[in-house]
């Protein structure tokens, strides 16, 4: 079954020997959702990157398991979707090429064309699919990241500042995606916005020393 579980134990991450956060422990079962909140500089982005395995923790562990069996980091890549303003796709490729090439790197083969079409229509980029991403506006790039993150139907979806750059219609698309993901697997949202945090049932609040207050 889908029952993926994320178990975080006593997590800590330092930058320049100062902890950004420490002593973070929680467990999250699918279906389920978690909001990461805190002031600017509290460490939300750092935490979500550690959870995604993009950067390592200083101490502590992040473990994913399904029915008690741990999921290897290499297998996790097939289960994970990630969207954030600082995640960039390739400017020199068209939107569709980006999806195709990156899927091949992830899994060795391309997704079905219907899947690509469905996702690109979902984020309203189908008509611009042959244009280079470098010529996209900020909101169009953000939309494409959603298409990319959802292409392989991830069981774990992580969103950092999910609605930034998006217009009202884009936000509605994201809300639909969020609603679906919450039912289907794990959703983690790092946000500054209380209404976005309210999408989620659980919450980790990073109070720490609150970045800019230090």
């Amino acid at each position, binding site marked *: 079954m889908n029952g993926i579980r994320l178990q975080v134990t006593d997590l800590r991450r330092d930058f320049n020997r100062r902890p950004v956060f420490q002593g973070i422990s929680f467990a999250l079962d699918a279906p389920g959702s978690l909001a990461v909140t805190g002031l600017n500089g509290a460490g939300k982005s750092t935490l979500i990157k550690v959870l995604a395995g993009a950067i390592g923790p200083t101490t502590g562990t992040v473990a994913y398991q399904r029915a008690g069996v741990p999921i290897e980091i290499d297998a996790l890549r097939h289960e994970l979707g990630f969207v954030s303003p600082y995640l960039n796709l390739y400017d*020199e490729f068209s939107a569709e090429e980006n999806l195709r090439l990156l899927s091949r790197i992830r899994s060795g083969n391309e997704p079905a064309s219907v899947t690509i079409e469905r996702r690109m229509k979902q984020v309203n980029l189908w008509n611009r699919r042959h244009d*280079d991403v*470098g*010529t996209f506006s900020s909101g169009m790039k953000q939309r494409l990241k959603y298409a990319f993150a959802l292409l392989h139907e991830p069981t774990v979806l992580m969103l950092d500042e999910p609605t930034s750059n998006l217009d009202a219609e884009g936000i509605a698309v994201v809300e639909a995606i969020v609603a679906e993901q919450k039912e289907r697997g794990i959703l983690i949202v790092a946000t500054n916005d209380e209404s976005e945090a309210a999408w989620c049932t659980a919450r980790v609040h990073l109070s720490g020393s609150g970045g800019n207050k230090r």
Partner: protein
Amino acid sequence: MRIVKVLSIILITFVLIAGIAIPLAPAPQGLFEFPIIPGLEDKARNIFYHVPIAWTTVLAFLVSMWYGYRYLRTRSIDDDLKSVSSAGLGFMLCILATVTGSLWAKFNWGSFWNWDPRETSIFVLLLIYGAYFALRSALASDEARARLSAVYAIIAGLTVPFFIFVLPRMVAGLHPGAKGDVDGSGPVLEFKMAPNMRVVFFSSLIGFTLFYIWLLTLRIRAARLEHHVADQHS
């Protein structure tokens, strides 16, 4: 335009035939014999092709530069089309001039390449064109491509006078008119040409220039159409 087309074809055909068919004679009689130029002999015929092509190359480059400059003032993408069309033609002519010159040099001066100042300058021109097109293809948006390549063409054009005026005076060369040329024969007009050779020579010059103009208008029209088509597809 029709006149240009017809005239250039007529002139170049005339030059091709006259330049090759007219025999050489030690003491030329009348219009249908060329004098023998000592040291050049039969090879002198290349002057009808090599030199006009080299001139047209320079012309094409100047035109390209001029339209580049115009683009910077008007920002009308049509000027960029003209500029790049002329540059493309210039590049082809430049290769032709180098090849004809190089072959000539092999049979006249003994090796394909000697770093004579003129050879150096045409080599630089080749490099400039190569760089120009490499730059264009490395720029993503049409406007940036037009702008930056225009600037580059002008900057590169600024160095060309150094090759034409300064370099030949500083470095001994093999071309006529170079520093240390014993006969001191200057530009091509005094280049030991008989009057009938001059007729062929100038026909060739005009012919190649018209040929260039004809091709340029063709290319510009083609480029416009291409972009029109591209616009409609998007």
